């Protein structure tokens, strides 16, 4: 691994890694069971530098912002490196947002370059807001030959001969702007510096190193902080290989473990649970004798690994299970959402450690991680090297808001000094999450102070961002609110968004209104949908400018009705 203390920017670290590990394989891309691309670090350089040169010739230079809207693939990483090579700022956008949301964030970021996958570009060009797009250069990947790209260039053709000029950046310079939320009107663009990333990478690799020969399966979106770090920066500065899969179909994911003998993979709870379901179903199909042997082997493995993982021993005890994961898997990494302890324990007992952690986009990637010494399914691990945690205003049980100080904490929110001041106070990042530190330094998360939910797919959903879908609902007023925010439960499961309805005088909640609610709810992607409703009997508290006072409303509801009053939608 490179010594990242010697570097001032990601571009320089990646450049040296690419030269040092030139002959190693850095990327494999497969679509279903068809391998599309296999690149060495040297091949990677051959693809990225002509793109960097073309970007420079087009006027893209130090500090310029380039947005990416693309699913996981090799062109994502090639493009990101070209942007860093030019000294640019990367703006990775979530490809699962709607075109209108992407356009909104593009405008907010003031990106001058957009690199976008063809099917996503088509959606953007069909959006009514497309005419407001001000991005100067648009590069479209995988566009069919002859397709009208409405001013965009084919990514594959956008290259120039001749060495581009490498632009060095300083540690405090901006490396990327990552949106943690805000499509509902107040975009939260986390401005992350080169130092944030270099220090995050150093801390993570100190506990879970990569090396040439390691194969990381990239499933989480690369625009997400976790995959950007462990599916790009981390493996690259260590000479490891990233495997991209162009589908999330469970059968092909399972197949990829075996085909590419995967070493690490980062997963959100939804995928881990899917794998668990598949394994349990297979176990249930076993005959009585085989099942008896399996259960005994699991029991023995559990006993022998109670202090720390012994992956080689587990592979001997449970060869069938480990073969199904390719035989070389060292750990499953999970984060970004609440993970059921029982699911993590299930995998750990099979000899497959689950490295769970906790982090926020505002804090780079991760603040804490399970060090597996021993494995603790009931916590989100210990602070990573260089991370200080404090519990603010703890109650009698030691539970309070988690605050963090680290070189990985973002510089600020883009164009929002007020929100920055509320979020970073005297150098401490206020996470809005409630937790406590136990005697051994492990962090336990026990609820949220902020009005939002995190889905099993790892998506942060803020009520403000989805509320407008209920515009025009024939009621006096309405609001969306997170159940765990209204009724703190000292746990992070049972995440639910609740629609609070204030009806007109003499109005009843009837089947017609239910139909209206359901119809609007269905316009949202499934992971953003509201899951429950309550009818509220008073007018909402509002500010002088008529904005709903959400804190006050939540408190009034909390003091008046129980969570059990929420009716499922």
């Amino acid at each position: 691994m490179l010594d990242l203390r010697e570097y001032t920017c990601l571009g320089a670290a990646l450049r040296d890694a690419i030269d040092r590990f030139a002959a190693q394989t850095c990327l494999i891309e497969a679509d279903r069971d068809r391998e599309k691309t296999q690149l060495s670090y040297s091949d990677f350089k051959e693809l990225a530098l002509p793109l960097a040169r073309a970007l420079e010739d087009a006027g893209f230079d130090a500090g310029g912002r380039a947005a990416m809207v693309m699913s996981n693939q090799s062109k994502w990483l090639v493009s990101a490196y070209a942007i860093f090579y030019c000294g640019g700022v990367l703006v990775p956008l979530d490809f699962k947002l709607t075109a209108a949301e992407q356009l909104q964030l593009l405008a907010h970021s003031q990106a001058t370059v957009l690199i976008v996958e063809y099917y996503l570009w088509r959606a953007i060009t069909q959006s009514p807001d497309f005419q407001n797009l001000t991005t100067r250069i648009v590069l479209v990947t995988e566009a069919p030959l002859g397709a009208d790209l409405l001013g965009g260039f084919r990514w594959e053709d956008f290259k120039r001969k001749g060495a581009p000029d490498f632009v060095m950046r300083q540690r405090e310079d901006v490396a990327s702007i990552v949106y943690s939320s805000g499509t509902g009107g107040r975009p939260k663009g986390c401005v992350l510096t080169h130092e944030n990333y270099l220090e995050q990478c150093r801390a993570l690799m100190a506990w879970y190193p990569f090396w040439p020969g390691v194969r990381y399966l990239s499933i989480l979106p690369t625009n997400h902080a976790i995959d950007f770090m462990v599916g790009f920066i981390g493996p690259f500065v260590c000479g490891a290989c990233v495997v991209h899969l162009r589908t999330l179909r469970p059968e092909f994911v399972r197949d990829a473990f075996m085909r590419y003998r995967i070493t690490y993979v980062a997963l959100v709870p939804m995928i881990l649970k899917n794998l668990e379901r598949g394994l349990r179903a297979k176990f249930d199909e076993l005959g009585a004798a085989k099942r008896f042997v399996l259960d005994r082997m699991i029991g023995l493995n559990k006993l022998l690994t109670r202090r720390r993982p012994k992956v080689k021993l587990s592979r001997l005890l449970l060869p069938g299970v480990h073969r199904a994961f390719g035989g070389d898997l060292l750990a499953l990494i999970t984060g970004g959402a609440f993970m059921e302890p029982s699911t993590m324990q299930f995998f750990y007992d099979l000899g497959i450690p689950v490295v769970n952690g906790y982090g926020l986009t505002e804090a780079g990637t991760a603040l804490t991680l399970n060090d597996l010494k021993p494995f603790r399914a009931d916590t989100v691990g210990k602070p990573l090297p260089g991370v200080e945690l404090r519990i603010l205003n703890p109650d009698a049980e030691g539970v309070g808001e988690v605050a963090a100080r680290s070189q990985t904490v973002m510089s600020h929110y883009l164009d929002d000094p007020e929100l920055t001041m509320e979020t970073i106070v005297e150098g401490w990042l206020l996470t809005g999450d409630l937790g406590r530190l136990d005697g051994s330094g492990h962090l336990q998360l026990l609820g949220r102070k902020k009005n939002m939910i995190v889905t099993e797919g790892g998506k942060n959903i803020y009520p403000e961002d989805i509320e407008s879908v209920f515009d025009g609902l024939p009621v006096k007023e309405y609001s969306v609110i997170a159940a765990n925010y209204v009724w703190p439960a000292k746990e992070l499961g049972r995440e639910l968004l609740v629609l609070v309805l204030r009806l007109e005088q003499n109005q009843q909640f009837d089947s017609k209104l239910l139909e209206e609610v359901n119809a609007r709810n269905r316009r949202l992607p499934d992971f953003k949908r509201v899951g429950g409703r309550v009818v509220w009997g008073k007018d909402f508290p509002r500010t002088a400018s008529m904005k709903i006072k959400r804190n006050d409303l939540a408190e009034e509801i909390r003091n008046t009705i129980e969570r059990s009053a929420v009716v499922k939608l």
Partner: protein
Amino acid sequence: MQTADQTLDEILTLAAAHFKVPRETLGPDDDFFKTLGVDSLQTLDLLTRLEHHFHVELPDYELEGVSDFRTLASRIQARL
């Protein structure tokens, strides 16, 4: 070539078999996440089964934003 109605009917039958529910409990405009209580990964599993049946290949993004059988049927019909 089969009609859109035939495609929809076959999808409903296959979905019922896949998720082990009676065929009559599924309607064309049902939100399958809600009716079946499944997540998006489980619907991807169903998609694989539908691909084999109809001999088509659908990229994952074709299912983005699709939550009812009628829309799913129209996506498949377009590729037949």
